[in-house]
C-alpha cells in the first residue's frame, strides 16, 4: 500500500515559531509605547520641579521703593523749595525732575537684573503751608481777628498734614471758669483758645486749651486739652502746669511727647475739612499746617504775603502727587499708579 501518512517535517516547528515572533514584535511595540509614556512622566516630574514662577515680591518691593523715593522728593520740596514767591509750576517741574533722576538711576541698576523699570509723573496736588514758626505771637490772624478761618468752609481741604502747635506762653491760657459739661458748646460761650475742625456735613470736632489752675478738674493744677464733638462726646488730656511751653503734635497724636489719642480728629470728622481758630488771643507761640489747597483758595486777609510782614504767612508747596510705576521682566509685566503723600495718615 502507498504510504498515506506524511512524515514529520521540521517546517511544522518553524510555522509555530512565526506566531511567537509576531507576538514578540507586538509586545515590543507595546513596550516602546510604554517607554514613550514614561518619557512623558519624566518630563512632568521635571516640569514640577522647575522654579520659573514670576515673583510678585520683586515687583511689589520695587514699587514700594519708588513710592518711598518719590515721597522723599516731596518732603524735600516741602522743606526747601516752598517760599512765598515760588510758583506751583516751578514746584511741579522740580517734582518731575526729581522723578526723572530717580527713574534714570534705578533703571540702570535694575537693567543688570533683567528688569525694565519706568517711573513717570501722573499728577501733582497743590498745597499750602500755613506758617507761624519763625516768630512767636498770639494765634490771631494777620488782621488781629481773634476768631478766624485758617481753611475756610468755602474751600475745605481734602487733606491736612504736619499740623503742630507749640504754645510758648501757657500763662495766656484762660483759667477754668466754665466746666465743659455745664457749658453749651456754642462759639459765643467759649473763651478758651479753641481749634475747630468741621466737614461739609456739619460734623465738627474741637480742641480747647485751658488752665485748671485750682485743680477743679484734676488732682493737681494742670494744663488741659479738652476735646468735644457734635455727638456730645467729651474727653481730655492733661499735664502738669510746671512747664514753660508745650507742643501739640496732631500727626503723632502727642502732647509734649505723651500720647493723647483724642487728637486724632479723623475718628470724628471725615471728608473735606475747614479749620478755624477761636479766641486766638488766649494762646501764643508757633504753629504750622500743610493743607491740600492752593494758596489762592485761602482767605488772603488772614495771612501776610511776605516774611518781613510777620506771621502768619502762607507758602506755596506740594501736598502730594501721583506716580506710575511700570515693571517688566521675562515672565511678568506690571503697571500701577500710586498716590504719594508724605505721612499720608498724618494730621
Amino acid at each position, binding site marked *: 500500500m502507498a504510504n498515506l*501518512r*506524511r*512524515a*514529520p517535517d521540521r517546517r*511544522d516547528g518553524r*510555522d*509555530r515559531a512565526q*506566531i*511567537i515572533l*509576531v*507576538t514578540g514584535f*507586538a*509586545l515590543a511595540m*507595546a513596550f516602546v*509605547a*510604554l517607554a*514613550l*509614556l*514614561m518619557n*512623558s*512622566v519624566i*518630563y*512632568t516630574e521635571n*516640569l*514640577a520641579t522647575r522654579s*520659573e*514662577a*514670576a*515673583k*510678585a515680591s520683586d*515687583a*511689589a518691593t520695587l*514699587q514700594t521703593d519708588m513710592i518711598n523715593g518719590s515721597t522723599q522728593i516731596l518732603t524735600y520740596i516741602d522743606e526747601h523749595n516752598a517760599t512765598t514767591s515760588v510758583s506751583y509750576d516751578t514746584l511741579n517741574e522740580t517734582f518731575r525732575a526729581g522723578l526723572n533722576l530717580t527713574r534714570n538711576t534705578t533703571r540702570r541698576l535694575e537693567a543688570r537684573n533683567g528688569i525694565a523699570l519706568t517711573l513717570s509723573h501722573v499728577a501733582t496736588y497743590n498745597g499750602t503751608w500755613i506758617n507761624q514758626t519763625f516768630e512767636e505771637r498770639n494765634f490771631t490772624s494777620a488782621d488781629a481777628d481773634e476768631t478766624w478761618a485758617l481753611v475756610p468752609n468755602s474751600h475745605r481741604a481734602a487733606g491736612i498734614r504736619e499740623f503742630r502747635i507749640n504754645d510758648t506762653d501757657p500763662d495766656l491760657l484762660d483759667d477754668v471758669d466754665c466746666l465743659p459739661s455745664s457749658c453749651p458748646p456754642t462759639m459765643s460761650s467759649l473763651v478758651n483758645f479753641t481749634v475747630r475742625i468741621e466737614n461739609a456735613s456739619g460734623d465738627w470736632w474741637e480742641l480747647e486749651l485751658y488752665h485748671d489752675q485750682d485743680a477743679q478738674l484734676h488732682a493737681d493744677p494742670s494744663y488741659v486739652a479738652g476735646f468735644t464733638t457734635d455727638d456730645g462726646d467729651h474727653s481730655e488730656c492733661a499735664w502738669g502746669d510746671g512747664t514753660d511751653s508745650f507742643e501739640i503734635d496732631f500727626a503723632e497724636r502727642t502732647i509734649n511727647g505723651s500720647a493723647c489719642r483724642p487728637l486724632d480728629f479723623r475718628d470724628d470728622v471725615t471728608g473735606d475739612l475747614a479749620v478755624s481758630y477761636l479766641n486766638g488771643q488766649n494762646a501764643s507761640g508757633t504753629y504750622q499746617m500743610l493743607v491740600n489747597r492752593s494758596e489762592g483758595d485761602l482767605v488772603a486777609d488772614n495771612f501776610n504775603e511776605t516774611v518781613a510782614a510777620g506771621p502768619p504767612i502762607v507758602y506755596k508747596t506740594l501736598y502730594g502727587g501721583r506716580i*506710575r510705576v511700570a515693571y517688566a521682566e*521675562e*515672565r*511678568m*509685566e*506690571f*503697571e*500701577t*499708579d*500710586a*498716590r504719594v503723600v508724605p505721612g499720608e495718615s498724618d494730621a
Partner: protein
Amino acid sequence: MPDGARPVRGQAITLNYTIGLGIAVILITGLLVAGGSFIDRQQEEAVRTELRVIGQQIAADVSTADRLVQATDTQQTVTLYRTLPTQAGGTNYYVEIEAGPDPTLTLTSRDPDVEVEVALLNETTLGQSRVLGGPVRINRTASGNITIESGGRES
C-alpha cells in the same frame, strides 16, 4: 516499519495544527489585550499627573497676579507669561477658569478623557475664560478681572 520512521499516534496533523494554533492565538490575544489596557491606564495616569502639575503652576500665577493687584493702588495691569507644553501625555488639553463664588481651574483632555480641577482662592474677580494648552498669559486689565488667554510674550 521502515528504519528511522517515527511512531505516530492516531491523530490527524491538520487537527493538531489547528488546535495548537488556536490555543496560541487565544493566549497571545489575551496577552495583547491585557498589555493594551495596561498601557491605556498608564497613559491616563500620566496625563492626569501632568495636568495636575500644569494646573498647580497656573494657579500659582493666578495667585501671584491676585497678590499684586491687592497690594497696590488703583489702575493696575498685571500680565504673567507661562510657556506650557502643548500636549500632556501625548494628547491636547484645555485650560479653563470657571468664575463664580467658588472659582476653579479646570484642565481637560479628550483622549483619554481626563479632567483635573484646582481650587482657586482669590480676592480679585476672575473672568470666565478657556484656552488650548500651550503658551498662555494670565492677564488682569484695569477693568478688573483676571483671565487666561492664549499666546506668550510678543517679541
